[in-house]
């Protein structure tokens, strides 16, 4: 036991001596939160739009005031004629235009049906899709209001062509993603590099010739990374609570438990990487390419897994962060408890045990 403590102490010394890496380790989650939380938000606010109202009746006025009140739109101008729209779009002054034909209100009151036009600048298709969705939402809201008061069914039909965008992803989706990404990266990279470093230095030989047990080497190597990762976890949670308005809705204990489970899984992957890598660079590249890409792409926080080809959907099942991402979303954002995440937890535990067993076995074999 004393031997193990000596070793763990040494590992912490390594970590604290290397200021640059330490800075990177704690800078990474902060940078990620800032990037994903603020800069890379794919919510589009204050889009400039133009309104052409040929009808000018109480109904159109009401809808226009609703649009103006929305955070998403900034009514740049009200145009008298649709002819002027062309120029406005070409100049890039507006992203979207709404046209109410004459007699819009009358049509709605008398026939129960009215059609309006929504035109979007689709040179950036994603943006166009998103903002037409916002517009749709506003009109749907108004439809719902009408349905409540009216004696007869009335409906406004916005004429727009749209793709279905399942959820408007913003900070709530990114924070769990960032958590998965940061923990995965830190754990795998740090662990694999730490072990390969001993091999490169030649100190591994000495350790093997000493009575020090190989399992102790592994435990000692994992200890500082576990601590750093847990600290990172709290930094991310604190940042998202303070700046992104995202408190942990469910049990903090459950979230931390699941996170530690995920951290242990990632550490095992790092261990496995270190066994095959010969140099620190190889270990680093292996964790970056082998871990970062699948984590980014197949976790579901950048691209929804349901929209992927079947092969990728199947493949995503073996990415641990995918399961962790689901857990964090349920516990942190939706406030759900153990009953709704036990399945994902068991999958992670299984992966963790399996990976650890394999790496332990391989580690021992290499020593022969």
């Amino acid at each position: 036991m004393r031997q193990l403590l000596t070793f763990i102490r040494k590992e912490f010394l390594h970590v604290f001596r290397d200021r640059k890496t330490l800075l990177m380790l704690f800078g990474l989650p902060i940078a990620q939160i800032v990037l994903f939380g603020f800069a890379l938000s794919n919510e589009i606010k204050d889009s400039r739009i133009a309104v052409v109202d040929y009808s000018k009746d109480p109904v159109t006025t009401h809808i226009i005031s609703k649009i103006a009140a929305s955070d998403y739109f900034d009514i740049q101008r009200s145009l008298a004629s649709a002819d002027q729209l062309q120029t406005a779009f070409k100049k890039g002054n507006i992203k979207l235009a709404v046209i109410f034909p004459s007699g819009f209100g009358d049509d709605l009151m008398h026939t129960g049906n009215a059609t309006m036009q929504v035109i979007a600048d689709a040179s950036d298709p994603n943006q166009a899709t998103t903002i037409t969705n916002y517009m749709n939402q506003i009109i749907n809201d108004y439809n719902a209001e009408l349905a409540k008061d009216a004696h007869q069914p009335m409906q406004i039909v916005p004429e727009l062509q749209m793709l279905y965008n399942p959820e408007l992803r913003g900070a709530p989706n990114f924070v769990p993603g960032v958590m998965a990404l940061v923990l995965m990266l830190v754990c795998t990279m740090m662990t694999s590099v730490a072990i390969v470093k001993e091999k490169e230095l030649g100190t591994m030989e000495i350790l093997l010739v000493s009575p020090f047990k190989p399992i102790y080497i592994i435990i000692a190597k994992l200890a500082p990374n576990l601590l750093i990762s847990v600290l990172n976890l709290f930094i991310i949670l604190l940042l998202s609570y303070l700046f992104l308005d995202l408190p942990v809705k469910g049990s903090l204990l459950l979230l931390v438990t699941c996170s530690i489970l995920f951290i242990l899984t990632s550490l095992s992957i790092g261990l496995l990487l270190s066994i095959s890598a010969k140099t620190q660079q190889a270990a680093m590249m292996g964790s970056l390419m082998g871990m970062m890409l699948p984590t980014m792409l197949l976790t579901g926080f950048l691209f929804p897994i349901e929209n992927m080809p079947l092969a990728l959907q199947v493949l995503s099942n073996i990415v641990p962060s995918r399961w962790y991402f689901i857990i964090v979303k349920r516990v942190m954002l939706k406030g759900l408890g153990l009953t709704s995440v036990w399945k994902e937890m068991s999958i992670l535990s299984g992966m963790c045990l399996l990976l650890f067993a394999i790496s332990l076995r391989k580690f021992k074999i290499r020593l022969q």
Partner: protein
Amino acid sequence: MASVITTDKLTKRFGAFIAASELTFEVGKGEIFGFLGANGAGKTTAMRMLCGLSTPSSGKASVAGFDVYTQTEKIKRRIGYMSQKFSLYDDLTVTENIRFYAGIYGMSRPAIKTKTTQLLEELQLQQEAKTLVKELPLGWKQKLAFSVSIVHDPDIVFLDEPTGGVDPVTRRQFWDLIYAAADRGVTIFVTTHYMDEAEYCNRVSIMVDGIIAALDSPARLKEKYAAANMEDVFYQLARNAQRKAD
């Protein structure tokens, strides 16, 4: 002289390849035993078997009185090891390195403290106790690495090309340390490519293609091969080697 290493037809095969074939020798307590051979001759394989890192394919061997098949853990407690890479942690201080290696051998805290002070004094490194190892000159690192390898007072220390890359003066000083340890009764098992160092050994074995081609004191080897120096002896034996470097 009591022997601390005894081998009898110790052999290691990797498939059809026989890396070390029927090695039989004894090394006495406090002896400086030179283990020579060209690259690929099987030195490392033999040494790994004696250190308990690799299980022999056949033959017998005991190190510090323990069997290399069944008592490797006990062997590990009684031996020290220093490799050509020196194996110190660059980002730890001199004291931290000493403490770490003493610690993994399970030495008690007071013992580690006494030993650290004693070592720093012997090496005249008191001023550098808190210096990071990466800032030390190569020669000092080497001496420190040696001292660290015997910090737990082992019966035998295995030195795997310990003097690679240092100048002759430093090498000479390093050998003073080796002699001092041998005088205290530590057995030195050393591999080297420097033939002047072979002259410093009590006895020398020369491996060629997995077998021990010669084993005797440097003086008698020179006499037997009618050679002016050990370099000549080595050349006569090793020039016909079939195996090339590994």
